[in-house]
């Protein structure tokens, strides 16, 4: 009930005051906020997320799985608030849940869309999140059994690796060269190539003979040189 009222309150100051007040009593409020966020109508989601955020970690820890489920669609009301809440919980708390979702393809509804959204979140939040998710993300990018590009746009995954930058070179290089080889001159292929080219000289020299034919292939417009 209180969430219905809050979601229609136009007085911002009053709204903030009420949210703050609700957050002072997490034991009574958290369950209700979670119910509001986990069910329709959508109009309550944003304010429910604001309350959960205001409660703060560790008091709002029970909401973590629900918040993870709520990042599946950046268009949902309260998505930005959920992302901020997760960011404030910190990578050491949230990253294990993110990696679990990478793993649970068969247990997460609309998994491909969910992964894209997680990547959008990782591109926005503090870099430590991306750093800790990097190896698992690179592993995901290298999997042969991923949904097709139209369902899971690889550029979302690459955006996160770009955010990590040269620090991902050691673990991402084999996956990226394989990806470039398969993608050729597509926009994702070019994005992966730009990322590789940003890596340190030492690692580029190590992979020089693997990269050389790929670069040649891309320069010739994707036609195989073999």
């Amino acid at each position, binding site marked *: 009930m209180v969430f219905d009222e809050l979601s229609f309150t136009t007085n911002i100051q009053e709204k903030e005051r009420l949210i703050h007040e609700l957050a002072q009593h997490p034991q009574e409020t958290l369950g209700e906020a979670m119910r509001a966020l986990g069910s329709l109508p959508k109009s309550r989601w944003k304010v429910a997320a604001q309350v959960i955020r205001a409660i703060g970690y560790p008091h709002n820890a029970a909401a973590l799985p629900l918040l993870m489920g709520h990042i599946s669609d950046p268009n949902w009301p309260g998505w930005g608030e959920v992302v901020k809440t997760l960011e404030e919980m910190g990578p*050491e708390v949230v*990253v*294990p*849940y993110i*990696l*679990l979702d990478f*793993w*649970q393809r068969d247990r997460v509804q609309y998994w491909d869309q969910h992964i894209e959204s997680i990547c959008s979140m990782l591109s926005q939040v503090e870099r430590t999140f991306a750093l*800790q*998710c990097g*190896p*698992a993300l*690179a*592993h*995901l990018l*290298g999997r*042969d059994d991923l949904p097709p590009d139209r369902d899971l746009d690889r550029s979302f995954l690459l955006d996160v690796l770009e955010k990590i930058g040269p620090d991902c070179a*050691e*673990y991402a*290089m*084999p*996956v990226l*060269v*394989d990806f470039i080889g398969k993608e050729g001159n597509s926009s994702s292929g070019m994005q992966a190539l730009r990322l590789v080219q940003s890596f340190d000289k030492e690692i580029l*020299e*190590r*992979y*020089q*003979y*693997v990269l050389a034919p790929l670069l040649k292939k891309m320069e010739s417009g994707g036609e195989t040189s*073999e």
Partner: protein
Amino acid sequence: MIENLLRESASLQDTEARSQMIHEIAKHASKEIIGELILILQDTQSPLIPVALEVLEIIGYPKNASAIPAILWYIDNGTSPLFEKALQILVAMGPAALPNIVHLAQENEAMDALVINALSKVGYYVFVQLQEEAEFITERVLQALATHPEESLEMLLYVLSNPIKVWWEEAVKIVSAIGYPQNAPAIPLLVAHACLGNDLAEKEAIQSLVALGPKIVVPYLLEALWDEGQTSKYLSIKPEDIVWLLLDSALGPEYLIPCGSMVSDILLRIPPTQPAFRRKFLQVLERIGPQCAIYALPALLNILRQERGSDLGVQIRKLIATFDQEALEPYMQILQDSSEQGISNGV
């Protein structure tokens, strides 16, 4: 006309007069005359073959280059003394003739087979027979090859890429003696010979790779792993051959560690039906130890799903248990989830 002159010189009893006449014929040898000499060599029953070979020897390289196929034929098929004479002509041509011989081999299959056979016989003669009887000649041949890399390297590549086994050990030594960066085109073949197994050149090849050092060699090892035996550049050796090299040879951790990420990537793609290969690749990660956690953990957890309760699963769990807590923390939910499914007991 040349036949008459050859016949006349062959009939001369006075060796000095005979030699003078042969020199005279060689001195005035035109393209046409060389062509006629080759025709004589092609008639294997001709009594003029020994004298024709003598003339060709004096004509010298590169003027007698067109006779190389015929000379190779006599090395491959000739018996003493024609074999020795043909070999003598070839040796006298020197390293400069080697690129020419390789190009001939590339012309067609028949010529390729002839070159392989002839070089095998040359190798046996120089490295086995002469080594026992006249080691200094062998040494001279090796030195000549090592000091003319621009001419000899192409043939060394050819020798190391073909079943001319009697040459392999020496060829690797020469490649090594040529030194880096001149010998760079031969490094893929050194890698291949280092892991072919039962290869005469194996020990030499490994020593050469050690001498080159990890900075030069590791990029080739990665390329060979990546190539997966699909091209002839590395003589179609498989990633498991490279893994054997990394694990069982004198190549130290400075070669092994930089290959870890690629090994982990390939391990993931080995089907469960090949547990022996999976185990071998896993050994590389075990050898690297906790340092491999950052790139290997996702792959290991993935394989663990397929290897519930198997020996390999146990082996993976043991490896994961050695990883630092910091590396494991991001995967805690997965490990817990796996544990609930009975996958990761002991991690």
